[in-house]
């Protein structure tokens, strides 16, 4: 199981929840948690998925629901 934590930037708690939902629905992502307080996103990838390929899609999905967000270190 592959799990990575990314630093993120987002303005409000509800926006963080939206990012979480968007990340969870992205193909290749098994589970995702966004913590607004620590500004961290923890992503669990599905077997055989490359984080480098999946994360840009996660970011795109998040940007779609919340334009003022950022994921660092992708």
């Amino acid at each position: 199981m592959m799990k990575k934590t990314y630093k993120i930037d987002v303005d409000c708690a509800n926006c963080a929840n939206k990012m979480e939902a968007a990340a969870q629905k992205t193909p290749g992502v098994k589970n995702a948690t966004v913590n607004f307080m620590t500004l961290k996103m923890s992503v669990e990838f599905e077997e055989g998925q490359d984080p480098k390929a999946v994360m840009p899609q996660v970011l795109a999905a998040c940007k779609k629901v919340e334009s003022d967000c950022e994921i660092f270190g992708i």
Partner: protein
Amino acid sequence: MNSKQKKMLYRIVAAAVLVVVLQLLPESGLLDLVPVPLGLLYLIPYLVVGGDVLRKAIKGIQNRQPFDECFLMAVATVGAFALGEYMEGCAVMLFYQVGELFQSVAVGKSRRSIAALMDIRPDYANLEKAGGVIEKVDPDEVETGSVIVVEPGERVPIDGVIVEGSSTLNTAALTGESLPRDAKAGDDIISGCVNLSGVLRVRTTREFGESTVSRILDLVENSSMKKARAEHFITRFARVYTPAVCYSALALAVLPPLVLTVLGQPAQWGDWIYRALTFLVISCPCALVISIPLSFFGGIGGASTCGILVKGSTYLEELSRTGIVVFDKTGTLTQGVFEVTGVYPAAGVEQADLLEKAALAESYSKHPISQSLKQAYGRELDPARVSDVEELGGYGITARVDGRPVAVGNARLMAKLGLSPAAPDQTGTVLYLAVDGAYAGTIVISDVVKPTAAKAIAGLKRAGVRRTVMLTGDTEPVAKAVAGQLGITEYRAGLLPEDKVTQVETLLAEKQPRENLAFVGDGINDAPVLSRADLGIAMGALGSDAAIEAADIVLMDDDPARIALAMDISRRTVRIVYQNIVFALVVKAACLLLGALGMAGMWLAIFADVGVMVLAVINATRALYTRDLVRRNGLA
């Protein structure tokens, strides 16, 4: 305030000034000179302060996820403008943004205060190179076995052993313990401590990445990914609640006028739409959405400043519902070292004399018993006074002290000498002493109970723990005595290490619904039990990787009072969370009702939205402050 927040503040101030000016405008008569519709003028402050909210609301509709706070606010304010309530439309947006700004500042503040408290990351290490040259390097580059120099005032960057120098160390950042600790050559030193007085040369025993400080930071930074049930509840709640409110508002705007029309009465569309708009403003769920994670964050942060690391808000929440606490006796409640706890000289024998003879007779032994006798005697022993030492396995020792025959050992040794002394009224390892073949006294050696253990047990009971259970490999009388001394309700004696899991499983089966079982261990050999219990609490985990891995809550030192403190922090945090949930829901429900009945105007709606949120956030930040709880548990 960061630049984003400052910008927001300027927008709010500018819009507020504009609104005030516009309020005064009709009286000034200027409007008669230049006929501009008032609504158009009010649009200026409205867009200044709320432009981004409108933009987000539109974006939400485009993404087919319309129901959020921005949507609520956008509909309410646009609706107010459509009804000609320009001033109120602006006010709603203005106060909404004030609330958002307040929340953002409050969150940023607690983020920063926690970051400052956990600021233990060392930036550099003073690496000693060949020829005694000292170079500042990145701690990551220091190889195991190198020698580093720690100056007074600096933080120890990497775990190691002191090779030269002595000093006092401040471990407050690691353990929450404010009393400095002495350190001298040969002592292990853990990274994260601050060197207070002398220069230390340290040979590193680990890489930076595996040092205590890195492991703790890792733990803290990755904590709170496991969200509490209350947080999940709010996320789900908001998902259902917001659409429900929007449809209710729509129904409120449309149905009553239609019914009135059917009944042949004036429909009063404007009135009902206004009520629906106040309804929308009141219903904004931001008070809940922000205050609950903020409370848990504060609780976890407050706990970590007291040397209690909680691996996620869910554990903080579960800890508050703990009804059974199981202790592994040695190392958690007792110190795991032996000490002389009772000296009973026979008639005519001096206490000090008895101890001296016993210590001398045992002085050649390496057994822990002889160490504790030596420690209790407390003075230098002259080995020349002892001769003819004979160790009798299973009995004890005989020797000549100052030429007189001395026998130290158990009851069997005494029986061999034809003596039958009475057993003392105390549990532990009992040593009898005979001098010149006559009984001289009894010394009891036992594992010492930690000074704060009894208080910790009392604290747990006060915090609502129903059963405290002690597991030990010791014999029944010893277990009974310790349990009685500490006020522990139950004990299981004579256990083998592997019996602990079965005992915990039996207790798990006995617990009541909605109650948790916590297991407290010192991290040695109890990783399986730590993970089996609902909550695993590892104590004194500064050295043990397996315990940090397996436990849900890690206490940085081995003071049992921190367990009670952790309970208190968790209970307060959860209480704050429920206070906020109940407070927000009750106020909102009451205001929604008043709004639907037409008894609440836009100003009350603004209070129900922004006012409730500000109060909830202020309440949530209380979770961060744990000083009174620390004092209550005697840890200040």
